[in-house]
């Protein structure tokens, strides 16, 4: 059964699973050195030059699965020895160039960087080239390629560069922890630190909800995940791990939509605060606009706060597609509410570390939120929900939203806003393409994911935001 998009994810998962397996049994410290051999058992290398390098890299993965480098505040970490030091040459003409007559490459180049050799083959003068890529797009043979590192190409905020020893280096002052590089690095050399050990410890010490209760808060994008089983079975699986119950982060999204609608009407211009990578991006790249960030906590933090209000001893764990959430929960304003964060990848590893076959489990139920809270998981959902929030509260304010799909679109909108030429009064920012369903912590990223989220939204018992949050109001 196919659980992941890539073999890199599968490898990461196997390490997480083995670490978790030992942790449940309190055997991690004594058996930790066995893990590389469990993952790389044979004598013939399958991934790298030799099994010793493979095992050395697995050892590094084990460290990240156990929380990673504590001295690095970023949850996104480079595994130096796993980085294959890909070429960084930029646009280059390959041997596929046939030395044609047309010279479209030359014509289209804005800098006159294309010259021709004795056999009429094209060359790119690197002192002139600005890496615009137009020559590559017009070559009839596709002979011009962009030798850019996949990590650098994935990182739209330009936080990745080459270090002196040629491995990838992350500039924490620019990184927004979205995890795009993790998903794109073909060697799995960038990874997100895992807090599964904290979660396992939390569950064990709860002694079956006797000492305190551990609540799982799951992101609505779960509807596009674990497709080999039913959502209700995933819920039962989460409870079987030892969580007291499962609550939808989407109910927090309903609360946010309701409050954010009122906030928007009051302030007249707002940027959303749901996506932690987007919020981080504004603070780092557009500090002048930081005052326009909605003051609402994110949906996950909002529902976690509510849970802790009803049960002060509660522990809360957010389970989602997001690596940036692993930064968010450590922030001062969120720390009191969310105790830990894991991804869907890590949830899969936890299931298998306990040998739970969720496909054979009974279906539990999951129904707290409305349609609108649930569609937060995909780009455009938040804007729809805020418009609905205005309508349900009879607020006379016309929302003109721009829904930014991916951090590049966010950048465009923020640039316009900073120059006061944006034709909108609400920026919905989603750092990942497609919204949360494109998150780096997803097991799979598919084209049907958006439809899955909408279907899940339509299945909600509550049809309006007001109805969904009415149970939360206190007299």
């Amino acid at each position, binding site marked *: 059964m196919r659980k992941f998009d890539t073999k890199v994810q599968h490898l990461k998962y196997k390490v997480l699973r083995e670490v978790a397996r030992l942790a449940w049994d309190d055997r991690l410290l004594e058996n930790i050195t066995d893990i590389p051999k469990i993952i790389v058992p044979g004598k013939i290398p399958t991934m790298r030059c030799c099994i010793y390098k493979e095992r050395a890299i697995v050892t590094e993965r084990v460290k990240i699965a156990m929380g990673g480098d504590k001295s690095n505040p970023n949850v996104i970490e480079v595994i130096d020895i796993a980085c294959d030091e890909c070429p960084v040459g930029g646009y280059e003409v390959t041997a596929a160039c046939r030395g044609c007559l047309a010279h479209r490459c030359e014509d289209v180049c804005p800098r006159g960087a294309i010259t021709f050799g004795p056999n009429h083959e094209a060359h790119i003068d690197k002192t002139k080239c600005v890496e615009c890529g137009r020559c590559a797009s017009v070559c009839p043979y596709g002979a011009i390629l962009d030798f850019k590192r996949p990590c650098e190409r994935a990182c739209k905020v330009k936080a990745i560069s080459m270090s002196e020893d040629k491995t990838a280096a992350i500039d924490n002052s620019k990184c927004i922890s979205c995890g795009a590089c993790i998903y794109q690095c073909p060697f799995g050399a960038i990874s997100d630190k895992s807090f599964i050990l904290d979660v396992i410890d939390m569950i064990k010490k709860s002694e079956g*909800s006797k000492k305190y209760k551990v*609540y799982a808060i799951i992101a609505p994008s779960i509807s596009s995940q674990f497709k080999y089983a039913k959502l209700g079975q995933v*819920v039962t699986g989460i409870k079987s791990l030892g969580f*007291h*119950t*499962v*609550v*939808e982060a989407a109910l927090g999204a309903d609360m946010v939509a309701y409050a954010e609608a009122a906030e928007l009407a009051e302030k007249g211009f707002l940027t959303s605060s749901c996506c932690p990578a987007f919020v981080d991006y504004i603070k780092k790249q557009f500090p002048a606009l930081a005052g326009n960030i909605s003051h609402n906590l994110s949906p996950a933090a909002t529902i976690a706060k509510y*849970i802790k209000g*009803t*049960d002060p001893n509660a522990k809360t764990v957010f389970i989602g597609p997001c690596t940036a959430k692993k930064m968010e929960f450590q922030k001062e304003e969120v720390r009191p509410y969310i105790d830990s964060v894991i991804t869907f990848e890590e949830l899969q590893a936890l299931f298998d570390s306990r040998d739970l076959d969720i496909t054979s489990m009974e279906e*539990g*139920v*999951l*129904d*707290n939120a409305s349609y609108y809270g649930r569609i937060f998981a995909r780009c455009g959902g938040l804007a729809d929900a805020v418009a609905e929030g205005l309508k349900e509260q009879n607020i006379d304010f016309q929302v003109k939203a721009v829904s930014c799909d991916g951090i590049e679109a966010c950048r465009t909108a923020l640039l316009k806003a900073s120059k006061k030429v944006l034709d909108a009064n609400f920026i919905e920012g989603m750092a990942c393409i497609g919204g949360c369903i494109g998150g780096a912590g997803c097991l799979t990223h598919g084209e049907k994911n958006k439809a899955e989220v909408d279907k899940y939204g339509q299945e909600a*018992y*509550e049809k309006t935001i007001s*109805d969904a949050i*009415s*149970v*939360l*109001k*206190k*007299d």
Partner: protein
Amino acid sequence: MKITVCIGSSCHLKGSRQVTEQLQYLISHNNLKDKIELAGTFCMGNCQNGVCVTLDDKLYSLTPENTTEFFEKEVLPHV
């Protein structure tokens, strides 16, 4: 006096919103807002018997249909 209604998924589907709304109405209708605290919680671990409601520490199983009866028999006489 504290009434806690389970608003977890299972009870929600069995009508915890309707139960909550009725209790809210009954409490305010009887002018008991300062005497009765109405709260929500996620899952009391008794999903088969939802909608789960506790009156102080005693557990009740309600439906939207018998909420008024519960209020009149179990709550009003003890306020």
